[in-house]
């Protein structure tokens, strides 16, 4: 029993974080049909904002909000710096500029802050543990689960019920047509980057909260996770990204529990084997999303 509860909590907390990462990536992909490779650096920005504001004496929640706000700002900045100038020109150009922007931010962190891990302030509650039904689990896992439920519900509400959400979905299905109806395209794209940055900021705090430190390359793993989750879930579908995130977490956690100790360091090889099998079975991902996938 305790084991089952432990397993479920692990899957849900890891899955919630993965799902949020994937959602932030797929929101941009859905509208522009372009992967933002500088997405991981938004998580890095959130981490360093926490580090830089740690001496300020501000309450933790204010520092956390500041970190999320900076991720939003850098999200919008990514659009202006890497996407907007070359968006209409070619896919390859945007691919390169988003990689370049990613590199630029990482190197700026190396140069102006440090290549060494920096401590991020965390409230005591992050390191406490709690016992549920015989299972001992860190409170931050429960916080992650709660945060992802709230955010996934909020994003679902935003997408279904608000003007901005309907405009974003219209733009995601058929960008040209949405423009022809009078949807303000640039505003929608900037909003998508802001939302992506917001999710990256929150995930950044939760993710970095697991390790307690931030390094310039901290965003690489979340980017990879988000990318794989969206690929197995379906690149064009927001629910697909969420499903992909949880599925990837289920695979990772199951392997963590079942692999013998000396094979555990090869866990990713097992994970990716399963990912390849899933893709052979469903090449377009688990949830297909709109068929009109032409980049416009």
């Amino acid at each position, binding site marked *: 029993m305790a084991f089952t509860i432990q397993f479920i909590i692990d899957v849900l907390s890891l899955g919630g974080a993965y799902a949020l990462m994937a959602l932030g990536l797929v929101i941009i992909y859905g509208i522009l049909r372009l992967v933002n490779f500088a997405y991981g650096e938004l998580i890095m920005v959130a981490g360093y904002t926490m580090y830089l504001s740690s001496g300020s004496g501000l309450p933790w929640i204010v520092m956390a909000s500041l970190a999320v706000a900076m991720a939003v700002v850098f999200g919008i900045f990514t659009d202006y710096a890497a996407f907007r100038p070359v968006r209409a020109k070619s896919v390859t150009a945007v691919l390169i500029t988003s990689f370049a922007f990613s590199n630029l931010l990482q190197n700026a962190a190396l140069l102006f802050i440090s290549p060494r891990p920096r401590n991020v302030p965390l409230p005591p509650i992050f390191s406490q543990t709690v016992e549920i039904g015989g299972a001992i689990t860190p409170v931050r896992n429960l916080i992650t689960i709660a945060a992802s439920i709230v955010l996934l519900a909020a994003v679902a509400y935003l997408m279904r019920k608000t003007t901005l959400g*309907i*405009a974003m979905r219209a733009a995601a*299905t058929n960008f040209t*047509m949405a*423009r022809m109806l009078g949807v303000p395209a640039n505003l929608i794209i900037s909003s998508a980057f802001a939302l992506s940055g917001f999710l990256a900021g929150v995930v950044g705090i939760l993710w970095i909260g697991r390790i307690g430190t931030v390094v310039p390359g901290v965003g690489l793993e979340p980017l990879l996770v988000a990318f794989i989750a969206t690929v197995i879930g379906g690149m064009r579908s927001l629910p697909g990204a969420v499903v992909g995130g949880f599925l990837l977490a289920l695979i990772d956690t199951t392997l963590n529990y079942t692999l013998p100790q000396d094979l555990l360091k090869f866990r990713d090889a097992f994970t990716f084997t399963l990912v390849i099998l899933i893709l052979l079975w469903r090449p377009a991902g688990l949830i297909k999303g*709109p068929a009109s996938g032409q980049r416009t």
Partner: protein
Amino acid sequence: MSETRLAVADVSVEFTGLRALDHVSLSVDTGEVVGLIGPNGSGKTTLVNAITGQVKLATGTITAAGVTLSGLSPRAIALQGVSRSFQIVRLFNAMTVLENVEAAALAKGAGRAAARERAEALLDEFGLASKADELGDSLSYGDKRRVEIARALAAEPKFLLLDEPAAGMNDAETETLLHTLAALPEKRGLGLLIIDHDMGLIMRLCHRLHVLASGRTIAQGTAAHVRAHPAVIEAYLGKGTAHA
């Protein structure tokens, strides 16, 4: 007069040297239904694309209610009250029928509640209320066309351009559509420009016809006038049959 008129004046469009439209002038007044007809490749859709800003003009100007449209972006033109449907339906497939129509109202600046109300009323009017929650993708062809027209109307246009609205519809559907469309100009105070190959529909629906052939205007006027026009008969049936 010009306050209630969509005026195309002396418009030419070129595609890499090929003249798709050659000094065409046409007008649609509020309350009027104008039919745009002509053989395949005569430039009908190009003219609609020119009005909605999707192709650049080589010569001429286009104004709607006194505002110059030529040179504006498609989005700006849509916001000036010019809406259109497409020859090949372009719905938002992953969104519900209701959301498709709502999106157009929202894009024109309606509030959430007003947009929902307007969309529901339009779906009622087009007999689509029972399909409001289905995805755009899942509809029959005729229903998709109706959704597209409803969506165009949700923007409350002053001028509505319909590119083959009856294509793919059966006779009964076409008949219903005819009655809905015929009532639009009066009811909504808009000018309607229709392209269609169904001459029965066009002749009964339109107050005036404008005939294009190879990018040139070859005739315009009432249905009776156009039908008897030698150039029209020649364009449609070929030389030699004109006097048969």
